[in-house]
């Protein structure tokens, strides 16, 4: 059964379809059902973090922890070698009668370099992997979307999803007790 307005749509390509919910429970349940129905290219928006929502939309594991580890490792090795080069090669200086490469005295700086590079990788990596900075995003074309930072919850299914069909997906989103389903224009 097709609704009237579905048949009257224009043929412009859209970014996706966005459903609005009143409660966090609503959006979490909807995300789970969408995931069960086979949708993968989706995202959800909430005024506050909802742990279950991340799982419900089937968010993929991020590569960020691995990058941070590698950043820390580079800081650790780099920090140590930097000191060894300075103290033993570039400007050899005997301190307290100890060998030029004295590991215990290198540990604090090595540790600090590890933390510095790991933390920097975390911040920069998060920004880059999130695709930021991003001056324009289609979701803001939905007028009511600004409520996502106040008291509404949104579920977005992107048109790039292999299972996406403008009519069927719209009917599906409506069947999930959503308040409203809107087209997200490019």
């Amino acid at each position, binding site marked *: 059964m097709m609704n009237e307005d579905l048949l009257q749509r224009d043929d412009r390509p859209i970014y996706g379809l966005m459903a609005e919910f009143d409660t*966090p429970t609503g959006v*979490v349940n909807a995300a789970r059902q969408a995931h069960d129905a086979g949708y993968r290219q989706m995202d959800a928006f909430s005024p506050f973090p909802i742990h279950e929502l991340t799982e419900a939309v089937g968010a993929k594991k991020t590569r960020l922890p691995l990058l941070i580890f590698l950043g820390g490792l580079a800081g650790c090795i780099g920090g140590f070698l930097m000191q060894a080069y300075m103290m033993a090669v570039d400007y050899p200086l005997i301190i307290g009668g100890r060998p030029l490469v004295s590991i215990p005295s290198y540990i604090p700086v090595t540790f600090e370099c590890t933390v510095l590079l790991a933390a920097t990788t975390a911040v920069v990596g998060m920004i880059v992997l999130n695709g930021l900075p991003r001056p324009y995003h289609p979701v803001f074309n939905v007028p009511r979307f600004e409520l996502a930072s106040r008291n509404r919850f949104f579920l977005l299914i992107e048109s790039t999803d292999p299972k996406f069909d403008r009519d069927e997906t719209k009917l599906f989103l409506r069947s999930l007790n959503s308040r409203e389903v809107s087209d997200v224009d490019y």
Partner: protein
Amino acid sequence: MSEVHTHDVHAAHRTAADFAASLEVGRLQTLALIAAVVGIALTLLGAFLDIEQFFHSYLIGFVFWTGVSAGCLAILMIQHLAGGAWGVVIRRVLEAASSPLTLLVMLLLFIPVVIGAPFLYEWTHRDAVQANQFLQWKAPYLNLPFFIGRTILYFAIFGALSYFLNVWSNQQDNDPANGYIYERQMRTLSGPGLVLFALTTTFASVDWVMSLDPEWYSTIFGILFMGGWGLSALAFVIAVSVFLAQRRPMNDILAPAHFHDLGKLLLAFVMLWAYFSFSQLLIIWSGNLPEEIPWYLRRYSGGWQVVSIALIVFHFALPFLLLLSRDLKRHARTLGAVALFVLLMRMVDVVWLIAPEAHRGHGAPSYVGHLNPVAILFGFAALIGIGGVWLALFAWQLRRRPLMPLGDPLLEKALHHGHHHH
């Protein structure tokens, strides 16, 4: 956020029967008693081979297991102060491990240390003290009557804190409607209690371990013990929780989210231990003073350097790298294996702190340490012997009460932590 899972919070009143310990905890008690008999027999065998070695081995066992109790008491007080689901699910384990009865038995187990004091502590020898000006100056503190009195005071402080926390916890179980009143009492005690714990642990570490070399001192020594005891306790609690999570009733309660939290704490404590240990090493190594450095020279000669390096690699580096993994922390059995490994390394650390001080020879140049495999073997025999007694007491205390605190205001929240969708 709470709206998401209000539907599965059933307000049903939970009873003690819902959280009764399984029969396996009783079997653990029997096994522990067998270990106690075997361990103590082996330790006593060591006494006939080498009496000085015997008392050092015994001190290793005593200090380690007292540390697990004291560490559990400290974590118990931290969880009362900080709150959170992670604390509610391990509270009964913490209470059982630091029960007043356990502490009383540990105090009785201190008697052999007093008997062995002449073999352990140079400052108990009148002639050694008279020949050494430093020991004369320290005599008002380092003398046997005061030493015994202080140890009784340490156990009195630990015991009193543990007594009130356990009694109020029982009352809370019997009166869940007023659970928050008892929770407030326990929180109020825990603040000053942690300050007392820090002071008591500092003095205890100086008395029992640092004074093995009466001329040596390290101002971070007490903090090293606080971190070490906390780590021992946490590793033990995680191992027990994994054991309980395989069985009813805790298999329905303990979820990956709980183990994730406990795993993060374990990682933090592993780093803390490394941080404190390295701080002491860096300062003493930099100063290189004749009255400080021999302690490290003993641990960097005669074979002990192997143990020293092993501590860096296996007490810090390996657990640190493993615990970075989120998946590992959320997988109960693997986390349990890492916790048991950390517990083993904690024992090696206590052996490393105490055993190199044996056979120093009174008055002889004191940096000739010898790694004696027999010494380590008997050290572990004592760890198993005293550990068996300790573990039997623990299992007995754990079985006496429901495995979850029935009256804890955070009980429902803790039960649903990680059980959001069913």
